[in-house]
């Protein structure tokens, strides 16, 4: 009894500063509520976040759009001349959009094509591999926690470290060729063969990010009630049917999250590829973000306005992807309610 009293006293003592603070802020908050009403309080609490969002997201977006309407090589807006939609027109001047070399900005369309194929292949493979890994890790494996950590570990690495590790493995005098040489196999130039290099960027990005997606899917798998599987087992349902009829439908919300996150991340691919291949050989692994970076900053031929126009177009693609995801999500919610 006395222990309970002591604990209660200690709790009151610890909470005293909090209560004091609440009393202090209570007065102005009541005044605000009186002035704006209950609905105004929501806006009041949202205001700080909206201010930060406005300064760090909306304002740069607007400035970027203004940049895309200017020409010249200077960085300061005041020193740049207004050119209207000229940068966009330059990006879209093409003989055929399917042949980047017929376009005025061939590197942009090469980057668009590369990014498109990268997103399609990487996201499909990423989801497949993450799902299989999650299904395996959901079983009663020996040292299950260890294996989960193994698959999650690359997520903790900096993308630059990921790029460097794989560069040391894949370069001409790298670890892979050394290993092959021990078995009498001729070394191969993995990072200068355009097909292998493209495949390498997909493989490396899957290796680096699959841990996170596996974890999300694993959480979804563990939330599926066990009794559904037990009932299916008692009915003698085949494992493939169990997967199609129970696992996949109940995992759908998690899968949707994974698809959206993977899609957005894939469109934005940059750091690890920049370190691993630098966009080469030629422009075979030049993706949109690198194109924007090089056009805006790194190249001696830089053109900030053109880079801004390209980034606005990339932003539009991301907005479309997000809207599609929202649409699918809302449809799923409605179905669930029915």
């Amino acid at each position: 009894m006395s222990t309970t009293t002591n604990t209660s006293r200690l709790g009151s003592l610890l909470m005293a500063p909090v209560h004091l603070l609440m009393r202090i802020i209570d007065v102005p908050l009541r005044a605000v509520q009186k002035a704006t009403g209950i609905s105004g309080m929501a806006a009041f609490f949202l205001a700080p976040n909206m201010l930060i969002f406005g300064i760090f997201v909306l304002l740069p977006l607007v400035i970027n759009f203004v940049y895309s309407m200017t020409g010249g090589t200077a960085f300061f807006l005041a020193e740049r001349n207004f050119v209207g939609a000229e940068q966009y027109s330059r990006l879209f001047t093409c003989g055929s959009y399917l042949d980047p070399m017929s376009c005025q900005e061939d590197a942009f369309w090469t980057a668009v094509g590369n990014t498109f194929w990268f997103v399609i292949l990487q996201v499909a493979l990423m989801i497949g591999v993450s799902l299989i890994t999650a299904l395996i890790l959901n079983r009663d494996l020996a040292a299950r926690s260890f294996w989960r950590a193994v698959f999650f570990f690359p997520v903790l690495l900096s993308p630059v470290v990921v790029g460097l590790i794989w560069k040391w493995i894949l370069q001409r005098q790298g670890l892979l060729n050394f290993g092959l040489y021990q078995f009498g196999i001729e070394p191969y130039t993995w990072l200068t063969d355009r097909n292998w290099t493209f495949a390498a960027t997909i493989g490396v990005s899957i290796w680096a990010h699959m841990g996170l997606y596996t974890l999300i899917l694993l959480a979804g798998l563990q939330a599926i009630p066990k009794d559904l599987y037990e009932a299916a087992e008692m009915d003698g349902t085949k494992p493939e049917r169990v997967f199609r009829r129970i696992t996949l439908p109940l995992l759908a919300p998690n899968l949707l999250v994974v698809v959206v996150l993977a899609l957005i991340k894939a469109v934005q691919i940059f750091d690890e590829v920049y370190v691993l291949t630098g966009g080469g050989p030629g422009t075979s692994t030049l993706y949109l973000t690198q194109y924007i970076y090089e056009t805006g900053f790194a190249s001696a031929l830089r053109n900030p306005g053109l880079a801004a126009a390209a980034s606005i177009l990339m932003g539009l693609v991301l907005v479309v992807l997000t809207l599609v995801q929202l649409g699918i999500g809302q449809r799923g919610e409605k179905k669930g309610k029915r």
Partner: protein
Amino acid sequence: MNMKMKSLLAGTTLALLMSTAAHAGDVRIMWYSDGVEGEVMKDLVGRFMKENPGINVILDNVSYGVVREQLPVQLEAGNGPDIARVAQIKDNARHWLDLRPLVKDPKYWDDNFGAQADWMRPDGSNQISGFMTQITLTGGFANKTLFDQAGVEIPGPKATWEEWAAAAKKVKESQQVSFAMAIDRSGHRITAPLLSYGANYIGKDGKPAPLDKGAKDFLTKFVDWNQDGSFSKDVWVSAAGNTYRAAAEDFINGQLPFYYSGSWQVANLATKIGTNFDWVATGSPCGPATCTGMPGGAALVAIKYTKNPKEVAQFMDWFAREEIVKEFSERTLFLPGHKAVVAKGGLDFKTDNALAKAALTKFVDASKTTSETALKLPAWRWSDTFYAAIVTRVGQTIAGELKVDDAFARIDADIAQKVKDAGQ
């Protein structure tokens, strides 16, 4: 607000200011190293601060990529360090501080650094922007041990690029190394053979001229040599755009009979190769027009956005002193850009590596045959534009994305677009 609260607030504000703002008297230097010069610079900066206790010099050692890619962006935004060691000297000349009214003796600067002053100031001005920490010259290095083992004679001083390619190919086949030759992925480096083939980048109006026969002839050969394995394809296809890539590691690992780079590599090769094999500097192979290397170098320049111009000028004055330039050159194995140091001679390069000493002598000799056009290019505004366009498009051609003729058309178009973007 009571006194206690006011004192507390004032103290906190002062602490915040001290933790974030630069001290008056701070001089921040952005420095990159090819070899041992970072260590030498650190030592010299220490000595300067002992002699000038009121000035705190902060030496930021960064990679060359940072100086090349991030510094220009900082400068365009009106930021950056107080002093920087740069290789893109002319292209950013509008950002350099005019030290003429700040240095103790402008005449000393004109007399000793005047030959390269135009390389680092806006056209038509008499600004003192800084000085060359080293004068460089592009040139070749041959792995003498590989040539000897293959029983192939090292081509002589007037040997052409074709003769070098043929000899290096024989060595490659005999010694089972991956490639015969390599040249850094750099527009500056590849300009030397282009000039030897008669190229001239500068049009009559001072603006870029379309690629001429000399340039096209060498670039066509260069692409062919990459396709047939004579040149290391790895270097030129290993990135998109005009990203710089050096091929020094393959030479240091004994995998290249011939490597075309420049005098700044001497200290690097001497340190890393040691006694593993013998190597020699060869000068620049010849073309039908001439046998020239490309001059260049790194400059230490003051940035005009500095908040401490007097301290910056004081440091520049100290570092530009004859005895300091001489010591820096001797310890870093760099060719000095100081007229009196060169004229007096007697540089005692601090190395017991006979190969390095011989290589430096070879580069000094080779500098005597540098062509007129080569000497003009470092002070020409459009050099970097030309270099970037060539590297980007030739890289794509070697990777099989463009035909040679399409690459030539694209190079001309890229350069013309850049001139148009700049409002010229």
